[in-house]
């Protein structure tokens, strides 16, 4: 660290301030709730007043005890850098093992990882060939005969299997896709009652494409499961629940048809696939890899007792303070993927849509009413839907990503 010439130190210490700011201003300064003009004034005074600086330092709340202090002593090779890379390597091995374990099951082209026939008729992106679109239109109609015909056609038409799987992996999103998936499940149930189909002869190129597709889908399934673990403890997103209900309703043309057990998985994954709908097919695998890698090291967020926003990129082992560009005393944080919402004192609400890289101040208003009280809780269940709870018992809800708000007084 640089040294300060002694003469500078001397002159710096000699210039004492005149009057002193009151405790309100000092407390507000320490909590970051001063107006910009006042903050500059207080800083200018603190720069020349050792007594007020001392008061500010003494009044600072205690920092949380470092985690290392309570951690047992570890041997030298179990130090953090080793553990960090070891954890990353272990995660890669686990994912690779899971993918490889699932691959033999997928070698049988007539069945997916659950032993169910693949979803053969799914909605397709706009760029899909007209032939596929026509088939999708046929099978979107909830008629049992067409479902059976679709299953039979799947057995016959082996040359188109890989292409359909690729389309299925990209278009598992949305309610329409969910409905078609449900029909495919029903068709699969019918197929499952039949004896196992004979081995299918495919060409080398087709087999390679099929393997690539199976690997992508296996990774996608792993990704979702990791997301489910990360999101444990949080209520199921209402928008997804609603989608599930719609999917379940559309998936049950007959009352006795039970919804597929993993329908929620598909919908959640489909929501991500919906964002990728416009992407070229060749980028799909890279996108999945990126998302998988991002999920494997999904950052955790918290608010320290001092009101700072902190992020951990290593599952909570170490935490680093995150600044939002403006002083704020945070009370709560909610993160859904890359969307992070941090809220705190005096209605401070900040949103980042890129995982905390950039932040935008959000000023919730409902008609003439502005949110100015302390936000003690923030819960977002998706990019659009979220709720803020204030210290005064108000509930502010948004369903459009914070553009408009509705307030409810409890």
């Amino acid at each position, binding site marked *: 660290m*640089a040294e*300060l*010439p*002694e*003469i*500078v*130190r*001397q002159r*710096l*210490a*000699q*210039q004492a301030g*005149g*009057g*002193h*700011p*009151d*405790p*309100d*201003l*000092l*407390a*507000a300064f*320490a909590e970051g*709730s*001063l*107006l910009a003009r006042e903050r*500059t*004034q207080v800083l*200018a*005074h*603190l*720069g*020349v007043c*050792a*007594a*007020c*600086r*001392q*008061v*500010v*330092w*003494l*009044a*600072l*709340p205690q*920092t949380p005890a470092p985690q290392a202090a309570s951690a047992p002593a570890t041997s030298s090779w179990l130090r953090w850098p080793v553990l960090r890379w070891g954890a990353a390597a272990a995660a890669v091995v686990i994912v690779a093992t899971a993918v490889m374990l699932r691959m033999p099951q997928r070698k049988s082209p007539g069945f997916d990882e659950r032993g169910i026939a693949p979803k053969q008729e799914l909605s397709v992106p706009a760029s899909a060939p007209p032939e596929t679109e026509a088939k999708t239109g046929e099978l979107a109609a909830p008629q049992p005969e067409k479902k059976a015909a679709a299953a039979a056609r799947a057995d016959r038409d082996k040359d188109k299997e890989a292409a359909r799987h690729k389309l299925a992996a990209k278009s598992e999103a949305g309610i329409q896709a969910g409905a078609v998936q449900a029909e495919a499940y029903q068709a699969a149930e019918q197929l499952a009652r039949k004896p196992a189909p004979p081995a299918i002869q495919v060409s080398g190129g087709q087999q390679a494409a099929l393997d690539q597709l199976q690997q992508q889908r296996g990774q996608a399934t792993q990704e979702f499961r990791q997301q489910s673990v990360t999101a444990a403890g949080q209520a199921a997103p209402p928008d997804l629940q609603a989608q599930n209900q719609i999917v379940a309703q559309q998936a049950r043309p007959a009352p006795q048809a039970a919804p597929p057990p993993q329908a929620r998985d598909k919908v959640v994954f489909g929501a991500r696939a919906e964002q990728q709908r416009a992407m070229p097919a060749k980028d799909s695998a890279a996108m999945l890899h990126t998302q998988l890698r991002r999920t494997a090291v999904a950052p955790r967020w918290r608010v320290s007792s*001092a009101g*700072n926003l902190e992020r951990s990129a290593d599952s909570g082992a170490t935490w680093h*303070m995150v*600044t939002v560009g403006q002083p704020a*005393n945070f009370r709560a944080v909610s993160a859904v993927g890359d969307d992070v919402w941090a809220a705190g*004192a*005096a209605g401070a609400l900040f949103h980042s849509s890129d995982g905390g890289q950039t932040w935008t101040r959000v000023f919730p208003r409902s008609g003439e*009413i*502005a949110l*100015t*009280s*302390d936000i003690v809780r923030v819960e977002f269940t998706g990019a659009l839907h979220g709720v803020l709870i204030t210290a*005064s018992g108000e509930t502010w809800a948004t369903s459009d990503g914070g553009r408009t708000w509705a307030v409810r007084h409890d």
Partner: protein
Amino acid sequence: MIWYHPAIVMSGAPEPAASAGAAPALSGCEALLGELFERSHAAGFGFSREQFTRVLEGIARKYLPAGAGAEQAWELLSGLRVQELALARACAAGNERAWEEFLTRYRARLFEAALAIAHDDAAARELANSLYGDLYGAAARDGRRVSKLDSYTGRGSLEGWLRTVLAQEFVNQYRSRRRLVSLEEQEEAGAQFAAPAAEPAAPADPRLNAATDEALAALDPEDRFILAAYFLDRRTLAEIARLLRVHESTVSRRVEKITSALRKRIRDALAARGMSRRQAEEALQTDVRDLGVDVRARLAQETPGPAFPCQWQATGKRKNE
């Protein structure tokens, strides 16, 4: 902005007198005033809307510059912690329910804060009890009980305000006790074995003082605060970063940048005063040798920090370093 002058003595400090000028315009804030009254739950403590509005007007008068518009008033008022403000003012007015709530919420925190400041259980209790007296209004003025809570304006949290008041009280107690140290205590502290006072340091070149003052005056307020906190108060980068709400590495970079920029400014100022670059550099370096003893004495006098029982003082190093 109202500043207390000249000391930081806050015991029984009354609400500062209202500015002589007219009250800031709150005419465009009627809706906000009503909303703040609702949000504060002041009615639960027996305040009418008019009474609470008068409190808010007093706060606006205290902090808003003369001629401030409705927009500035809205910005100030909307950032107030009105719930805690209502609680504090109700306590000051002697509302029993408010006191019960205050004690329930802040009694333990107050003692914890006192302990964190005093680092001693007995001293912490004494400090907290002393503040309780001031908060309750033990001191009467003109036959009227004056509570320190009456001066809380809701700019920061009530807990932060209590911590700040405790810290000020502690600093005041420390200063008053330091003036009353007995001869025996001085001997116990080894003062009789202290080395004789050093020879008065050679006065620095007046050009150097002027150049340094000029460079310091040109500093940004935050830069100057960082310099003072790091080099005078010997605070850690982490502590400074926490207070300024930036990352620790940012403070580290800024210290480096400010220091080098300051040196350059002083050299330039000395050059403008007729010194060669080499002479200027020598003046900066020579000063360290010549003024070392005097500077330490001045720092000890000006900066009460090292006398407080902080962890880093035991080792003479900053925490985390």
